Structure formats: structure tokens, C-alpha cells
């Protein structure tokens, strides 16, 4: 232990160590206040085939009184657009904080496969980035200032987040979208939004077939779609059980817990798909009906009514999906798992899907009816 010479032999090594560290860094610094943190991007397809791209960047500097910066350009690809846009700003544009991508209707109709490839290739982009389709021009929606709401990009992000938490729109992050896109048994979906005067509203659900937009589900059916798409733990649903001519019998269910299972039976052309849904809910409003919810028998009746109504609506919705050719609820993956591998490979699912027979069955259970009898 008194051998000092061997101990200090390492000193030059440490110097190299420190030196190489100092020389090595610095090139890739992205200091927080010097980068333009793109929060929202929008994509539209121009008639000439070029992309119209806009990005929104929040600004917080004391020197600028703007709370955000919106840059616009048109270019053949999104990365080229990035290069053009960086010429317009004093900040270094980065996409690591990208929260929302808005896809214009024109853009999604043409198919977005290449675009998805670009997005997933970039290691900076978060898989938790939300995707939304704009019914209209995405750039205009983003560029608009909505005076009674927070900063537009924040407004959109919070709106989407809140709505998907209550299951009235499906969760569509980059991860989910790309995962469903590559999976051969399911097609991706995305929420749809549109501008309505001084507000932005949820405009239903955009359906995709592979990477192409093929149709939309109106927002009133969104809850039924959510039940079909998969189980959820917390939801709200208003149902109009139209029975009599004059008064409307309506019920509102809260604390909705839904689960669904899909069963495939038969083979070949006789293949049948049965979707079983279980709903568990609390009644928070019941008007216009003559059922006494305090009575167990009447409650059973109500449950049956709801079940019948839901099953009919669900079947209608599935029909609609089949017509659009979008397997958004993933029937394909159940059919695939039911068939053998060679049979699945032989089947042209895209062609088979619209013709397959689908039945929906709903079982409703009402936990409680509130404080009143």
C-alpha cells in the first residue's frame, strides 16, 4: 500500500478520461430555452400533391408577448418541411415534446403509411403522442385562436385527453395507431375533431382501413363504439328508449363498466361472429317511462330494454363498419385466432370482412338507481 508509483500511474489515464469528455460533448446540446418545442403539428394535402404543414410552438420568453408561434410551409415531405420551417424561426426545432398530430381530412383520405413510417423512425417522437383527424383543414384549425379557451394546442390536447378518459373517443396515440396498423387483424381508429365557431368539438371517430381514412362514426354512437372496441371501467351513456309517440323514455347510465368478448364459430362461409357485451351501470336519470325502478321486476325490465336497444344499435354500427371496410374493433384478430395459420393466410380478410355475419348480444346489470326509489 505504500507503492505510490503504481497508484499514480493511473493519473494520466484519468486526464485522458476527463479530456475526452470535455472534447466529446457539446455538439448535440438542446438547451431548453434555445429549442422550439413543437407541441402540435398539422398535416394537410394540397391539390398539387404537396403537404401543407404547420407547427405550433409555445413561447414563454419575457421578450416576446406572443404565447405561441405557428409556422407554416408546404413541402413534398414532412422532414423537408421541417428544414424550411427552421429557416423561419430563431429556435432550433425539435419534436421530442410533440403531443398532438392533427391530420387533415384531405391527408388521411390519401393514406398515411409513409407518414407513419417517418414518425416512428424518429427516436425523438414520443409513442404517447396523440393523433386526431380534423374534419376540414387541420392547419386552419390549429392556426385559429379560440378566445375563451387556453392556447390552441393546449386546448386540443386537453380536450382529446379528457374525452378519451371518459371513453367517448378511443385512445389514439402513435403507439396504438401504429400497432393496430401493422396488426393484420385490426384497423386503427382516431378521434375526429372539427371547428365549430369559437370552439373545437369532437366530431366522432375516424375509421381507417389500413392507412386510409374510409369513414366516420358520428359522436352519438361513440359510446357504443367504445363498448364494441373493448372493455372500459368508467363511462357515461344516455339512451333514448323511444317507446310512446308523445313522451320520450330516456335513461342515463353512469359509472358504466363494460366488457366484451368476441367468439367465432363455424368455418368457411358459415363463419359467424358473436359479440357479447356486459354492461354494469348506475342509473342517474330515468324520465318519461312508467317503470318503478324501486321494484325489482321493473328494474329487470329496464335492464332488458337497455340490452335490446344496445344490441340493436351495436349491430347497426357493426354493419356500418363492415360497409366501410374498416375492421376497427378487431374482429379479424379473433377470426385469425380461430382459423388455422394456412386458412388465415388464404383468406383475403379485407374482402371477407364486409360479408361476415356478426351478432351482438348485450347483458345489462344495474347496480343501483341512486338515492330515490
Amino acid at each position, binding site marked *: *500500500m505504500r507503492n505510490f508509483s*503504481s497508484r499514480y*500511474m*493511473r493519473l494520466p*489515464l484519468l486526464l*485522458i*478520461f476527463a479530456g*475526452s*469528455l470535455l*472534447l*466529446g*460533448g457539446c*455538439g*448535440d446540446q438542446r438547451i431548453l430555452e434555445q429549442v422550439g418545442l413543437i407541441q402540435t403539428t398539422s398535416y394537410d394535402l394540397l391539390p398539387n400533391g404537396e403537404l401543407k404543414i404547420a407547427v405550433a410552438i409555445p413561447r414563454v420568453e419575457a421578450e416576446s408577448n406572443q404565447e405561441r408561434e405557428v409556422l407554416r410551409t408546404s413541402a413534398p415531405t414532412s422532414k423537408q418541411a421541417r428544414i424550411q420551417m427552421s429557416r423561419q424561426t430563431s429556435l432550433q426545432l425539435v419534436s*421530442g415534446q410533440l403531443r398532438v398530430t392533427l391530420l387533415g381530412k384531405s391527408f388521411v383520405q390519401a393514406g398515411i403509411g409513409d407518414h407513419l413510417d417517418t414518425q*416512428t423512425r424518429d*427516436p425523438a417522437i*414520443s*409513442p*404517447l403522442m396523440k393523433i386526431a383527424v380534423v374534419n376540414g383543414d387541420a392547419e386552419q384549425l390549429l392556426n385559429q385562436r379560440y378566445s375563451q379557451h387556453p392556447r390552441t394546442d393546449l386546448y386540443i390536447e386537453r380536450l382529446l385527453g379528457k374525452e378519451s378518459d371518459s371513453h367517448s373517443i378511443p385512445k389514439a396515440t402513435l*403507439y396504438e395507431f*401504429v*400497432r393496430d*396498423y*401493422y*396488426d*393484420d387483424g385490426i384497423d386503427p381508429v382516431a378521434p375526429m375533431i372539427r371547428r365549430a365557431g369559437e370552439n373545437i368539438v369532437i366530431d366522432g371517430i375516424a375509421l381507417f382501413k389500413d392507412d386510409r381514412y374510409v369513414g366516420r362514426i358520428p359522436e352519438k354512437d361513440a359510446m357504443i363504439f367504445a363498448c364494441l372496441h373493448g372493455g372500459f371501467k368508467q363511462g357515461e351513456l344516455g339512451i333514448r328508449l323511444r317507446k310512446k309517440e308523445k313522451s320520450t323514455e330516456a335513461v342515463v347510465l353512469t359509472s358504466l363498466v363494460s366488457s366484451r368478448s368476441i367468439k367465432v364459430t363455424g368455418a368457411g362461409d358459415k363463419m359467424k361472429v358473436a359479440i357479447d357485451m356486459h354492461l354494469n351501470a348506475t342509473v342517474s336519470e330515468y324520465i318519461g317511462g312508467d317503470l318503478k325502478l324501486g321494484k325489482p321486476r321493473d328494474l329487470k325490465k329496464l335492464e332488458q330494454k337497455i340490452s335490446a336497444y344496445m344490441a340493436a344499435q351495436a349491430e347497426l354500427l357493426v354493419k356500418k363498419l363492415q360497409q366501410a371496410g374498416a375492421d376497427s374493433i*378487431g374482429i379479424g*384478430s*379473433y377470426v*385469425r*385466432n380461430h382459423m*388455422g*395459420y394456412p386458412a*388465415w393466410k388464404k383468406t383475403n380478410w379485407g374482402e371477407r370482412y364486409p360479408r361476415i355475419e356478426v351478432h351482438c348480444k348485450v347483458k345489462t346489470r344495474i347496480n343501483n338507481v341512486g338515492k330515490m326509489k
Partner: protein
Amino acid sequence: MPTVKEKLSSFHVLILIYMTQTGVVIISLGQMLAQTFGLNGWLALPAYCIAVTVNLLLIGLIYRMGQGKSIFEIMEQRLPKALLAPLYLALTAVWSMLACLVAIEYVFIFQMIAFPTTNPVWFKLVIDLLAMLLCVKGVYTMSKASTVFFYLTVWMYPFSCLLFHEFSWKRMTPFFFHEGDFSPMGMTGIYTAFLGFELVMLLFGYVERSAKLMKMAIWANLLVFASYMYICLLVFGFFGFGELQHMQFPLIDMFAFVKFPFIERIENMLYGLLLFTMLSTMSMYYWSASEASGRLFTRVKPEYRGLALVAGTFFVGLIPDTLADVNVWLTWLGIAEICISFGLPLFLLALLMIRKEKGKTAHA
């Protein structure tokens, strides 16, 4: 110092081998399995585990027959040193190059993700220096460092339970091994993920009597297998086969999904933490190379040997300059290493059976 040279205990052997085996490959293993074995490719992992166990049993046989003597002693007691010199040189070359390439692979991946314009040579230099500092201190210190590295990285596994809600068995499909390309290169590539266990051969002389070396090596391999199995299962159910085929580093993408109120994008920590497992692997290979070369250059101090090996491979390591190149090199070296892992024990076995120790009579 009067204290006796400390030897490795069972637990340290376990962790040391586990950390040597676990490498950067873990981040792309899911993709490799999907590409090579197709649907539900993760089910191919048990086969690899069995192959490694067989290999380990072979090494265990040497351990028992050689009565715990180091493999170099076994060879040198039976063959003249001049005959062994080329073998030692080859071992040194393969092991030190493997160590170097493991680091290059890590550096390239890391550079792509976080530091696209920085010259990777700087990263490599610093990592090499760390590995050298570690490997010249001997296997006992390395095992202690590996233990700490193990505790620093193992929390990744409990964290992954945050991903369970996106996991779905449905995505697995009930089909097995369809659509794989079954390429030999891909298969060896996956086998390299398990490599590192063969270095247990060099630990023969360094282990406590009571520590059941071979048992621990087999346990370590099972641990590696379990962790790989878990990660790959998760990756298959998280992304689905279709997407997995298109990804390069599914594990990184998967951890990018994890989000906490105070921090997001955990993958930025993950590839930092991978440095620890990589360092263990790397230093273990450098140490093995240094042990092998020490048999030839007995008078050179281990510090200088380590320095020479790291410096030498550093310059060779400058040649491959893309990730694809590195992967090709790694696969070839992996093949060489697989040959060593099977060939060397077989060679030793033959020696033990055929030739008696020099200077000992047959009935002694």
C-alpha cells in the same frame, strides 16, 4: 496486506455470469426473434437455454475432472507452451475484440438515439477507459462492481409492470413459427445474446471451495433466460408481431411509453442503465483476454496488459463505422465465440482423458 486474497462466493458467481450474459442485445432481442422465428418467436428461447445448459454441463465436466484447476494449468501440464501459444493468441484476440465490439454496438445505438452528431469515438474512448479501470482490478473487484450494477439495473423489471395494461395475449396469435426467415445468421445472432457463460471456464481458480460454481452458472443462465423470456413475451404482446418486424429496438420504444408525473420517456434512462450491463460484459471479456495473454507474457503486469488490449482493440474498432457493419462483425465473432465455447471444453476433455500430467506417474 495480510488479508488473504478473497475469493468469489456463490452469489457473486451467479451475478457475475448473469451480468456478463445480459447485454445490449436485450433491446433488440424481440425483433430478432420475430424476424428469425416468426410468429411467437419468443418460444424459441427455451431451445437456446437448453443449448447453453448442455454447453455448461460440458464445462462442468471439465471442472470436475480437472479438480477445479484453471484451464490454463490443465493445458500447460499436458502440452508444451509453444504448442499452446497460437491458441492463447486466438483466445486473446477473440475475447478482446468481442469486448470492443460490444462497446461499439452500444455506442452506435446510443449515438443514434441521443447524440446524432457527436463523434462516437469519444464515447468509445471513455467507455473503454471505464472497462479498463474495471478489468485491471481483477475478477473479485469486477464481481463486486457487477453486483452493484445488478442492483442499479434490476429495477427495470418491476417498472415494466406499468406496461401490462397494454399487453394483450390476443396479439400473440395462436400460430407458431410462421413467417420467420430461419436464417442461420439470425439464429446465431440470438445465441450471442446468451454468450458470456463460457467465461465461467476462467473462474475455476477464483472461486471459494464451498461455492458451487457450475450450479451457479446454470442458475445464472436460467436467470438470463427468464429475464429474456419475460422481456420478449412482453414485447410480443405489447407491439404485436406485425409491428415488431419493422422495429429495431422494441425495448426502447416500449419504455418510451412509460410516464410518471415527474418524468417521462424513461427510455432516456434505460439506455444509460444499459451501460452498466454492457460494462460488466465488456470488462469480463477484456479480463479473460488479459488472463489468456498473461499466460504468454507472464512478466507484463496486468495493468499494462489490460492497457495494451484495450488500446489495441480500440484502434481495430475504428474500422467498422456503421451499426450494420458492427452487427456483421459481431455475428462473425459470435460464431468464433460459439466455437470456443464448445470447442475449448471438448479439447480440454480430450486432453484430460488422453494425456497424463507431466511429471506424474500413472498411478500417482
